[in-house]
């Protein structure tokens, strides 16, 4: 009877220890930076275009309606538009706030040509982004959603965008 009890205690302890190790390994694996070792041959592919045909058409329209002094850029990285307060230097990947925005990108960002100050972000999506939406609201940068299926016409887009540019 005592032997069975000891056996169970050992099994319990070893299971607990293994689960703890597994948890720690998973944590380390998620927070560890991407390794610096070189990629194998043909691990990556370049996208043929930066914008799909609908987004390209929209970019053309956007460029056309923008007032002088503004420029549009596409695919900007989230961590280039927004910075994190009190960020751990040299260990940015350990900061959950940084990780949330670092893998995000904006479809279009309108910047002031003179000093590249961001003025307006545009997301080519049907529904608000769960990460970008609250972050950009917090920093006070307007984010406009354009549904690809219901792309506005030239005048409608101008009426939507120009007041937002004037606010800055």
């Amino acid at each position, binding site marked *: 009877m005592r032997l069975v009890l000891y056996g169970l205690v050992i099994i319990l302890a070893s299971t607990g220890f293994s689960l703890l190790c597994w948890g720690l390994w998973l944590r380390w694996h998620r927070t560890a930076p991407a390794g610096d070792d070189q990629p194998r041959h043909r691990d*990556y592919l370049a996208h043929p275009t*930066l914008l799909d045909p609908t987004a390209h058409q929209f970019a053309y329209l956007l460029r056309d309606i923008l007032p002088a002094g503004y420029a549009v850029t596409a695919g900007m990285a989230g961590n280039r538009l927004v910075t994190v307060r009190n960020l751990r230097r040299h260990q940015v990947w350990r900061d959950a706030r940084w990780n949330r925005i670092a893998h995000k990108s904006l479809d279009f960002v309108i910047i002031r040509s003179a000093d590249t100050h961001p003025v307006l972000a545009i997301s080519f999506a049907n529904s608000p982004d769960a990460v970008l939406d609250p972050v950009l609201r917090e920093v006070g940068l307007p984010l406009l959603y354009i549904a690809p299926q219901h792309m506005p016409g030239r005048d409608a887009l101008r009426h939507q965008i120009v007041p937002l540019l004037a606010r800055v």
Partner: protein
Amino acid sequence: MSTTTVLVFLLLVIMSAIIAAARRRQRRGRTAQLPRARGGRVAQVLRGVLSNVPTRGTPRRHYDAVDMVLTPTEQQFATVLRDSLPAAYDIMVQVALQRVVTVRNPRRGQPWRDKRWNQISQKSLDFVVIRRADSKLMLAIELDDATHLQANRIARDELLDAIMHDAGLPLLHVPVQSHYDRLALQMRLLGYLPS
């Protein structure tokens, strides 16, 4: 016998609790909400006093928008680059690398578990040249300032070079200068852009 049954039951309860906690943590990680202030009321007040942030009414801020997307050095280069490019091409700035390069045979639904994905998901390129007519990716440009001489940046640049080489998209490194030779830059660019 009854002791054994109780122990086995306990073991099962502990294991299911651990598994439930792990799954809860995983779910919380996926929903990617904004971080909430931790601790009780006293901790929040103390934190507010220490960080000089009002605690009542206004929530704690975690993010700030950048004042300028490009640094003055990058702006100077961007002007020269824009002047050097033929009219048929356009430049995009601070482009997320994942918009330019993708992973071959990605893990569906769990890209963050793929090391190759993690290598590209948080990096960006200073400038990307695209063809105005169809947004075709032509060339990426990195402006190498003094930070590129740091050991971690050298390793990062080597990795980026390897990724871009593997993807088959040219990446041009331009060292920061006080004055750019427009003609020389134009000649360099024309080597990558079909006329």
